[in-house]
């Protein structure tokens, strides 16, 4: 401990000695400088400050004859701005402000003001908290909890900050409203006025001001006393630690030579006036410490990490936010409950609808089945004939064989011919029955990929099989090779085509043109396939065409009027539309519809 102290002292004397040597050596260079711009922190405006500081200006000018000393006076913000703008070579300001400028603008102190003669410059600034002597309840700073305390301004160093720090160290935080500061403004005498009026419990004065006022007789001795005096033997009583005095600092861009010349001039000044008393630069660490504790400039960023302080400072906002969150949560829960209820209602409705649709589908299938049976019924006359034909043929051959056997002229050749024909006709009859059975079978709807030309071909074969003198049916395949496959219910579509063919045929028979060919066209249309059946019958008047697809509409004396309405619902179930149009080229009617292609369109050109 002792050793360290000595070392520091050594460094100090070494530093001073060296500075002096350097400054002396540099003097001739400095002689060339023209202006020395000094900015001073002024609390009370230019006039007062100028009066206070002009002595220093004059003294420096006297020591630096080759330069023009220009003094300017600013408030805290103005001083910082001018300094930052490079308009000042030096500044003179209070310790707190200096620390800020040092941190923000690289100000470098070259000297510290000595206020109390005979004391080192490091311990010259501090504050005294005074209370009326009769307030016996206020003994120490700790007693100020919950009290009102008069101060100058919020950014006053010895007028507020030093005490603030001291209170905070004692866990009395003005920011938590544990003590209420009353800012009376400057000059500092206003603090005393506030106390005199009884508006505050305690007041803050810079150190020695109380003693000074008493000495001058402006304040009766003993009216106020100092709380928690730090060094009871000192000529001036302090309630706070002592901090370094005002700093005389150079800007970063100020030439070293000028700084040295100015320092030498400052150190050589002497006089009673405090503005002329400057010493070696003090250690401003205590100031840094204090400002850090207070979390004010340049340590305001520390506040961001102080959650507790934030919560305290912003608790109304926090509470508001919390209330809002609660409301929002309640609202969300309510909405959620509503959504769940609606969802339940909706799913119930959906289930009901599905059931209805299922019923409808069942009904539809029944209708469809009925309609197929009805088509068969309508065709049964010709159907019976169609079956008769092979049966009669078979009978003829069989009886012929018997006759030949009896008459004794039965040749092997005849047997062969007859047997062959009988077999063929039996197969033909079976084929017709198969077609009918397939067609009449009750079954659920089932979609599959099938080859459209093949499907149409099968229907045409079935249709022709049902008629004795079936008309020619021409199939025109305009499909591109790779797109033949459609995704449909094969039997339903067969039923539709069969119905359309039967209608076409009936229409032609009606005007005795049964022998006319019926045309079927397969063609691509956008992403679907269009199938058209065209007859050469009498056509339909527009009025009838409108009702064509309505159930029970028919132009036939024995028709049920269900065929086309069922066809229409089948096509609509395949997302298509069944339409009847007048052909451009003459009489007849054209019925057409579209079907979806199979999703996996085959690319092999088969």
């Amino acid at each position, binding site marked *: 401990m002792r050793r360290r102290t000595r070392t520091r002292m050594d460094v100090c004397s070494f530093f001073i000695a060296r500075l002096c040597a350097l400054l002396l050596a540099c003097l001739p260079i400095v002689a060339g400088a023209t202006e020395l711009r000094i900015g001073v922190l002024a609390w009370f405006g230019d006039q007062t400050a100028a009066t206070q500081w002009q002595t220093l200006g004059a003294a420096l000018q006297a020591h630096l004859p080759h330069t023009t000393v220009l003094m300017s006076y600013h408030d805290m913000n103005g001083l910082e701005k001018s300094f930052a703008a490079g308009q000042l070579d030096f500044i003179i300001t209070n310790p707190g402000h200096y620390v800020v400028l040092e941190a923000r603008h690289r100000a470098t102190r070259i000297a510290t003001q000595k206020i109390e003669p005979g004391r080192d410059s490091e311990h010259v600034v501090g504050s005294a908290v005074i209370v009326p002597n009769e307030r016996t309840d206020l003994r120490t700073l700790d007693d100020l909890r919950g009290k009102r305390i008069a101060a100058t301004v919020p950014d006053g160093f010895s007028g507020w900050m030093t005490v603030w720090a001291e209170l905070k160290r004692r866990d009395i935080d003005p920011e938590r409203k544990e003590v209420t500061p009353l800012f009376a403004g400057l000059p500092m005498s206003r603090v005393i006025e506030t106390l005199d009026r009884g508006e505050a419990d305690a007041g803050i004065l810079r150190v020695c001001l109380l003693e000074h006022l008493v000495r001058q007789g402006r304040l009766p001795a003993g009216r106020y006393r100092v709380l928690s005096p730090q060094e009871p033997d000192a000529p001036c009583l302090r309630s706070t630690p002592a901090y370094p005095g005002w700093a005389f600092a150079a800007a970063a861009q100020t030439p070293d030579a000028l700084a040295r010349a100015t320092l030498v001039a400052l150190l050589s000044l002497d006089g009673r006036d405090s503005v002329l008393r400057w010493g070696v630069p003090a250690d401003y660490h205590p100031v840094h410490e204090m400002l850090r504790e207070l979390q004010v400039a340049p340590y305001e960023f520390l506040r961001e990490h102080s959650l507790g302080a934030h919560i305290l400072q912003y608790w109304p906002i926090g509470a508001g936010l919390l209330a809002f969150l609660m409301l929002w949560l309640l609202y969300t829960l309510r909405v959620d409950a509503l959504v769940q209820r609606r969802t339940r209602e909706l799913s119930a409705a959906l289930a009901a609808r599905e059931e209805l649709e299922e019923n409808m589908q069942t009904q539809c299938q029944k209708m469809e089945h009925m309609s197929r049976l009805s088509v068969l019924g309508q065709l049964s006359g010709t159907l019976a004939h169609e079956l008769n034909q092979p049966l009669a043929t078979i*009978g003829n051959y069989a009886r012929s064989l018997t*006759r030949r056997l009896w008459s004794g002229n039965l040749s092997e050749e005849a047997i062969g*011919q007859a047997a062959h024909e009988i077999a063929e006709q039996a197969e033909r009859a079976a084929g017709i029955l198969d077609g009918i059975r397939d067609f009449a079978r009750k079954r659920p709807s089932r979609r599959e990929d099938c080859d459209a030309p093949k499907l149409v071909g099968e229907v045409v074969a079935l249709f022709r099989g049902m008629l*004795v003198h079936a008309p020619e049916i021409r199939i025109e395949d305009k499909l591109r090779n790779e797109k033949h496959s459609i995704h449909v219910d094969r039997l339903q579509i067969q039923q539709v085509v069969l119905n359309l063919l039967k209608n076409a045929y009936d229409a032609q028979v009606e005007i005795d043109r049964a022998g006319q060919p019926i045309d079927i066209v397969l063609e691509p249309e956008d992403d679907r396939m269009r199938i058209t059946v065209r007859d050469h019958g009498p056509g339909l008047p527009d009025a009838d065409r409108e009702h064509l697809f309505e159930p029970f509409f028919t132009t036939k004396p024995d028709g049920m009027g269900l065929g086309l309405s069922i066809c229409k619902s089948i096509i609509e179930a395949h997302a298509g539309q069944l339409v009847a149009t007048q052909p451009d080229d003459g009489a007849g009617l054209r019925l057409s519809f579209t079907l979806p292609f199979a999703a996996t369109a085959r690319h092999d050109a088969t």
Partner: protein
Amino acid sequence: MTPHKPDPVIHVIDDEAPFRRSLIFLLESVGWTACEHESAESFLAAPPSLHAGGGCLVLDIRMPRISGLELQRRLAAIDSPWPIIFMTGHGDVDLAVQAMKDGAVDFLQKPFKDQAFLDTIERAVELSRTRQQASRRRGEARALLTCLSPREMEVARLLALGLSNKEIGRDLAISDNTVHVHRQHVMEKTGTGSAAELARLILRADPAGLDG
């Protein structure tokens, strides 16, 4: 029952090939000569003539383009002697009535019994033969009558109507003697011995030959 006359021919005209062939097979089983035609057109393209042996046509009433009924009309228009049997798979009563009015021999509804079919064929062939005979005798009668002069033909008609020589002479404003001479020539040329015989001959040549 087995045909003994030279080769009557049965023509079957039906667009249903298997059934048509089965009929041919059946007809041939009992010894008929049968020809098949797939349509009325193919029959009309080279219409076979009905010869002395006789024969008949078996027609499907409904065929594409030219129907059975239409073929019947066309044949009637050219005085075809072929007897016609109709077949139908549909119970077309109206068509059947029309066909019978137009001189069809019979009307068979498919399917029919082979015996009924063969009996009808038999009848039709008989009819064709009768028709052939009548036709032949009409030809002979006409040939005889064409030898008569117009005056002789007039006398012959009046004789056949049973008029006496006197009445004929008065009608034609000629003398009894002249009537007698004409009568002699008529009897000689036609080879008839009586007025009744002459009347039969004239009617054979022309069933309306004695009308007003």
